[in-house]
């Protein structure tokens, strides 16, 4: 090192002497000192560059890379405009990519925050647990992936190779919670007693659940999530051992889960409490989960090291088939032959169970990831184009260096070091862009809770990813221009530039047109008629079932609620329903198997329909319509003739050719209902969803003595109507406080879940589509910005260097043909999205409109550019003098 340093010093001495000697000579020839100095420096060249180039010769590979980076940083000031453009370009590209990766990482790549997540396996693989019947075989092809509690206990005791096996409910249940003066709705998850020990999740404070807690009749206990403890209990340590009231039953909190623990699957709203499955009959009216045929648990086991997964899988499958063949529900004539096909698949769940949340967000995420990669590509192309211009400008320097014996590899290495440095600076700024973008995405997707495990801030692995992307992208956009400008064919430069310009025009057009199509589709979906009037309608959710009312107290409760809500200022009318329109987000939906006394109907007389229970006059309140027959009346009570109103879709499905009014049908063992009216179809699930054949029953027409416990349970569950619809005279500023006050007057312990307008329900329903459409538009804007900036730079360079206007013409021709190719690509892309996301894109008109707008945009740009060129040209002194001389002639 000291030897090398001495060399460097010697070099400086030589150069200094060189300059001094030359200056002296020039002064001797009669030049002034300043002049001599100027000439000397001009003829010598850049001293710093000469020194750097000389030193480089003595450097090893690592040192040369370091010196390249140092030099690149030093040089940033030199070509500031290009450097800043490249950095900003890359910040956008890398930022977009990182934002999506942040979400992909959080949702599907991050290991569960438990000990040794690698040895956790789920029994079962795929399956959307909400889409299937929970009774019978879960999968069509014999894939068994959901389990009943009894089957869980059987497997747990009969398969010792499974070190530990825990069961957990597939969904969370919303319960009313009271603690002191606090009345809230919280989500609980039912888990087996060994849930925490199987997952390897230690508590933050207190203890976790044990098998002793998971016995029917054991003292009710719960573990609270850390964030909920912070939010609702102010992080008070006294919460351990204290009692909260869940669904009007006292439950003791025994522990606070670890801060980072959110359960076995990544969701935007993890449960507030984990409670033993044995508490389910107490807290939930749906106690049927303990029935042998009710499959509603995920099973996760910790498998001992060294156990072979395939063999274990076969063993569990055999045990499953053996057990099924002993169960009466599975040995009916239809079911028995299917037992032989039943099997399980073990899947590693180190990153969490991929449940409903994952299934519903995955596609959107991958789509956005694809779009963000396009943005990154456009950014890289843009940066490459900028560096190509820079490379052209520095061509003399490059040729000189090669002539002096520097290898082409060395020249390229230097250029790449520079682009990587630019890329990394872009990446750092990109982290900020990424945070903002990810935040917008979470906001649009209604997932921006500070208590959610899904956050926009880039984590350490994400930062690593960003750095990697920056380096790879920097190499990519640096190496091509460096390779080309270090060679000696300017043909390649222009060909490459043309390819880059064309690709950029094509990609950004494709992106922005796709965005336009998605926006058009979103607009169309949101402005569909959903079967009810949206204007001035609100839904209030409360939790009657959790507040300890007996069925015989309900009539007076609803009457009191009706009276109080009606008295709220601005309220025109009030109605109640089990499931309010557009309310799949929070409403209760019950799908019932119904049958007709007329045995010929619907082939075999069985069919499925959704049950809703509503108060008299509800259709008017919600802005729905009775098409035929009558609405419910106050006189439709427990003692009068059981009646039902059916929806249009119900009528079409079961009465295609006749008038349904007066016909009768029933579900289970219930008394038969007489059809008294037909209501217009409306979306009672999500605005996003389909129209479902539905029948309505009067809210208070209650059948007390049903023989089948399942029927009785449904009758009870559906009697607890948890939402009210308000029809207002107009906007009301204090609606929320007024409504809360009104309900408090009826019962201060009755928790209110939410108050939402119909409009906001529609808005929530399309959150995924909106996220995709808005973010694609955001990306489209970024692409447009990048592309326009890129074209501007190329055009500017073209103007600076090229005398003839043909260069500009070619450029615009390329841009236009890029656009021409981009539009069909966008339509293909939109078609793909349409199929994947089950949306409808109004193709023709929106497409033509977008194409036209874009075309106009570019024609306008071309017009401006050509005029600008003329304008600039007219300013040049040479042209001016030429023109004036022409004029004089």
């Amino acid at each position: 090192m000291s030897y090398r340093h001495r060399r460097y010093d010697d070099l400086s001495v030589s150069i200094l002497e060189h300059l001094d000697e030359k200056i002296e000579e020039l002064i001797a020839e009669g030049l002034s000192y300043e002049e001599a100095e100027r000439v000397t420096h001009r003829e010598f060249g850049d001293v710093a560059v000469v020194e750097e180039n000389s030193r480089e010769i003595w450097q090893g590979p690592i040192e040369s890379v370091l010196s390249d980076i140092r030099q690149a940083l030093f040089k940033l000031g030199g070509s500031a405009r290009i450097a800043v453009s490249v950095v900003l370009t890359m910040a956008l590209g890398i930022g977009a990519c990182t934002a999506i990766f942040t979400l992909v990482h959080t949702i599907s790549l991050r290991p569960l925050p438990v000990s040794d997540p690698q040895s956790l396996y789920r029994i079962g693989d795929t399956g959307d647990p909400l889409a299937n019947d929970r009774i019978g075989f879960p999968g069509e092809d014999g894939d068994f992936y959901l389990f009943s509690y009894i089957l869980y206990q059987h497997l747990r005791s009969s398969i010792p190779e499974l070190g530990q096996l825990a069961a957990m409910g597939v969904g969370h249940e919303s319960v009313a919670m009271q603690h002191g003066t606090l009345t809230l709705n919280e989500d609980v998850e039912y888990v087996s007693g060994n849930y925490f020990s199987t997952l390897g999740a230690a508590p933050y404070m207190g203890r976790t659940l044990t098998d002793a807690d998971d016995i029917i009749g054991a003292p009710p206990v719960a573990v609270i999530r850390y964030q909920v403890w912070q939010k609702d209990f102010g992080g008070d340590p006294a919460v351990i051992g204290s009692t909260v009231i869940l669904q009007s039953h006292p439950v003791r909190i025994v522990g606070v889960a670890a801060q980072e623990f959110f359960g076995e699957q990544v969701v935007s709203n993890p449960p507030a409490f984990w409670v033993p499955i044995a508490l389910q009959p107490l807290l939930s009216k749906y106690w049927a989960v303990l029935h042998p045929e009710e499959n509603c648990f995920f099973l996760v086991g910790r498998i001992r090291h060294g156990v072979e997964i395939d063999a274990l899988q076969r063993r569990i499958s055999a045990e499953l088939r053996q057990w099924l063949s002993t169960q009466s529900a599975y040995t009916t004539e239809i079911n028995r032959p299917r037992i032989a096909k039943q099997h399980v698949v073990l899947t590693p769940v180190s990153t969490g169970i991929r449940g409903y949340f994952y299934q519903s967000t995955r596609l959107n995420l991958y789509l956005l990831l694809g779009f963000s990669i396009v943005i990154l590509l456009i950014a890289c192309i843009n940066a490459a184009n900028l560096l190509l211009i820079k490379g052209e400008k520095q061509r003399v320097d490059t040729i000189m260096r090669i002539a002096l014996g520097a290898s082409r590899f060395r020249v390229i290495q230097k250029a790449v070091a520079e682009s990587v440095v630019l890329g990394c600076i872009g990446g750092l700024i990109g982290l900020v862009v990424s945070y903002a973008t990810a935040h917008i995405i979470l906001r649009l997707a209604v997932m921006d809770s500070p208590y959610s495990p899904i956050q926009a801030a880039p984590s350490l692995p994400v930062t690593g990813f960003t750095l990697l992307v920056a380096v790879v992208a920097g190499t990519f956009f640096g190496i091509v221009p460096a390779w080309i400008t270090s060679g000696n064919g300017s043909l390649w430069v222009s060909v490459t530039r043309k390819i880059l310009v064309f690709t950029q025009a094509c990609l950004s057009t494709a992106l922005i047109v796709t965005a336009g199509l998605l926006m058009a589709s979103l607009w169309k979906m949101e402005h569909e008629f959903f079967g009810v009037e949206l204007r001035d309608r609100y839904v209030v959710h409360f939790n009657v079932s959790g507040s300890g009312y007996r069925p015989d107290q309900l009539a007076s409760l609803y009457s009191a609620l009706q009276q109080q809500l009606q008295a709220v200022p601005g309220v025109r009318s009030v109605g109640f329903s089990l499931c309010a329109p557009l309310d799949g987000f929070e409403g209760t939906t019950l799908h019932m198997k119904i049958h007709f006394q007329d045995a010929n109907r619907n082939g075999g007389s069985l069919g499925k329909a959704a049950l809703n229970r509503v108060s008299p006059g509800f259709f008017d309140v919600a802005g729905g319509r009775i098409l035929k027959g009558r609405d419910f009346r106050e006189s439709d009570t427990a003692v009068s003739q059981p009646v039902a109103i059916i929806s249009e879709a119900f009528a079409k499905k079961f009465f295609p050719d006749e008038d349904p009014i007066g016909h009768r049908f029933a579900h289970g063992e219930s008394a038969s209902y007489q059809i008294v009216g037909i209501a217009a179809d409306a979306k009672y699930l999500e605005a996003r969803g389909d129209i479902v054949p539905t029948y309505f029953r009067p809210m208070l027409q209650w059948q007390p003595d049903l023989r089948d416990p399942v029927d009785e349970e449904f009758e009870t569950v559906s009697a607890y109507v948890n939402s009210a619809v308000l029809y207002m005279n107009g906007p009301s500023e204090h609606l929320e406080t007024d409504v809360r006050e009104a309900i408090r007057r009826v019962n201060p312990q009755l928790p209110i879940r939410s108050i939402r307008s119909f409009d906001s329900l529609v808005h929530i329903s399309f959150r995924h589509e909106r996220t995709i459409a808005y973010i694609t538009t955001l990306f489209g804007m970024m692409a447009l910005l990048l592309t326009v900036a890129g074209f501007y730079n190329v055009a500017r360079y073209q103007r600076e260097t090229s005398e003839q206007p043909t260069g500009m013409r070619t450029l615009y021709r390329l841009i236009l043909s890029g656009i021409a190719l981009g539009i069909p690509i966008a339509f293909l892309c939109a078609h793909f999205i349409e199929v994947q996301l089950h949306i409808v894109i109004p193709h023709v008109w929106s497409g033509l409109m977008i194409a036209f707008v874009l075309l106009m945009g570019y024609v306008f740009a071309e017009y401006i550019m050509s005029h600008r060129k003329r304008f600039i040209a007219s300013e040049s002194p040479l042209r001016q003098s030429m023109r004036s001389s022409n004029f004089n002639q």
Partner: protein
Amino acid sequence: MANSSEHRDLFPGALELMILHSLRLKPMHGYALVKHIKQASDNILRAEEGSIYPALQRMLKDGLLESEEGVSAKGRPTRIYRLTDAGRKRLKKELSSFEEMYDGIARVLSVARLSRIAMSS
């Protein structure tokens, strides 16, 4: 950019050859070397003068030259470069291969000239 074509014609190794050839006569310091090459080549070397230094460093590293402390014509401290035996050998080799190449080019050019004469006659 304007005079880039002239630089482009400088083939790799040309500068090195000129340095070796100049130092064959006597050891020189940097500025003297530049002046010598400029005069001898009738100002063909229009490259920036500084470009000689990286070339000198490379040749030092390859052992073709050695340098020692010395003083310039004006009495200032500087480095004096001289040829080593390896440098002398390299010069010989380069010269013979350069001459071969030069002969080759000359032959091609004369053939071209001959054929042009033949065509015009």
